[in-house]
């Protein structure tokens, strides 16, 4: 009897062990392929470029990208370009997120204003913001602020629409509950609507990381004297496509880092 029991425990823990092992194996497998794909991609790219199958002048190669980045860094301008793009993006990101949320609050507050503004929001949302590019330069001049404005324009409408949707989808019984406790509209906003919308807010942040980089690169294409978008433009004009590819690589890294900084927030507040 005793023996049987013991066997039982062992066989149970075996199943458990197998289960844990399988999960771990899956995890390692996924990670392995993620890295393998990356290495394979770079390797084949390098190989094709070295053997002249693709023309490294047009397609560049991993080694050329690395040496270009090192060259640019040694020249000392690279940091200026990275810093310029980074702060334009961050300023645009913050302004767009805050302003978009504030506008959403105003639209939530007054149903009248919401109904009046609805067609304008729809048109603004579907308008390709890049079309406003030339006008922006006339309005705020070229340079950093033109880029920031472009960045804000690209992010703000989607921020407003997403946050407004989050605000008005709040359960009407919850609002009724607040009212039955004699809450005024401010209290309903600050104690219910805003904290209730934090999960949506974190996904807006995540979307805006991507969108604000689009805005910055667009803005720098239009008119700029520094920044990674400027560098891409410059590289293509002087036909140094290595510079273009190096800038794109740096953009990838920066956007990924910013995304990684924001995404834990989303996980934390996920419902």
């Amino acid at each position, binding site marked *: 009897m005793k023996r049987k029991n013991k066997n039982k425990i062992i066989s149970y823990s075996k199943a458990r062990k197998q289960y844990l092992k399988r999960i771990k194996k899956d995890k390692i497998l996924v990670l392995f392929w993620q890295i393998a794909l990356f290495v394979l991609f770079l390797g084949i790219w390098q190989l094709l470029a070295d053997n002249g199958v693709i023309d490294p002048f047009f397609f560049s190669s991993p080694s050329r990208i690395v040496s270009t980045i090192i060259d640019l860094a040694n020249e000392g301008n690279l940091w200026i370009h990275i810093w310029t793009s980074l702060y334009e993006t961050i300023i645009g990101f913050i302004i767009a997120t805050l302003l978009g949320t504030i506008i959403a609050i105003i639209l939530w507050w007054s149903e009248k204003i919401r109904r009046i503004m609805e067609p304008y929001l729809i048109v603004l949302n579907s308008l390709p913001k890049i079309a406003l590019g030339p006008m922006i330069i006339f309005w705020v001049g070229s340079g950093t602020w033109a880029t920031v404005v472009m960045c804000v324009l690209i992010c703000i409408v989607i921020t407003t629409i997403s946050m407004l949707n989050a605000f008005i989808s709040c359960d009407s*019984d*919850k609002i*009724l509950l607040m009212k039955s*406790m*004699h*809450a005024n509209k401010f209290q309903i906003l600050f104690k219910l609507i805003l*904290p209730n919308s934090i999960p949506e807010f974190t996904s807006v942040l995540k979307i805006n990381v991507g969108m604000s980089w689009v805005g910055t690169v667009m803005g720098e294409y239009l008119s700029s004297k520094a920044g990674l978008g400027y560098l891409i433009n410059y590289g293509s004009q002087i036909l140094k496509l290595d510079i273009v590819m190096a800038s794109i690589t740096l953009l990838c890294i920066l956007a990924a880092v910013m995304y990684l900084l924001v995404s834990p927030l989303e996980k934390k507040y996920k419902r």
Partner: protein
Amino acid sequence: MKSFLEFKNVKYFYQTKENEIKALDDVSFSINEKEFTSIVGPSGCGKTTILSLIAGLLFASEGEIILNGKPITKNDGRIGYMFQRDHLFEWRTIWQNITIGLEIQKKDKDPEKLAFAEQLLKKYDLYNFKNKKPRQLSGGMRQRVALIRTLVLEPELLLLDEPFSALDFQTRLKVCDDVYDIIKSEQKTALLVTHDISEALSMSDKIIILTKRPATVKEVIKISFHGQTPLAKREDKEFGKYFEMIWRNLV
């Protein structure tokens, strides 16, 4: 006993773009203090309209509603409202949830009120969960917290809008018992709205039966059982008779 809540010939019309809908037609009834009353009626008959009128969130088109000698003319905080779902705020702890009403009414520094809130938590076995988040509690406990949240404000009248309908049957019987127990021991006057005849029967001293829309009062039935708790009442042999009487009035 003097009547605590009184509906005097109340009519209510809903306005929609297409037309005017008569929801309540000449509704009159009264509720005594510390009594537990239920309103039953066919679905869509305007039960929730009645609750909104009492809470001062809607206003009667005609007639008058008097609570504790004073007519209800606005949402003046004399009412506690309990909903189908507990609507606890997930980002607040249990303690922060039950004191939200005090916070709203700027009484959250009042030591007497805070002591009362704490005492309620202790009395109903939730004190150990004070600093937990709602998602860490079972459905039944959450509904108890929701009830305490309304009791903290010491409302004159408690409105219950099908407060058990979101729970599964087992939990429902248990929570029904708990809520009944709390309301009775706090000596609250309560008005329950439900479509569940057994639930109304097991909790109420009096049942008001409404007709279908436009609603009027069809019958008022006084209930008395030997049993004390809702669960015990369900086993009373009179239960079936009452059930049939109400059911016949509904169809």
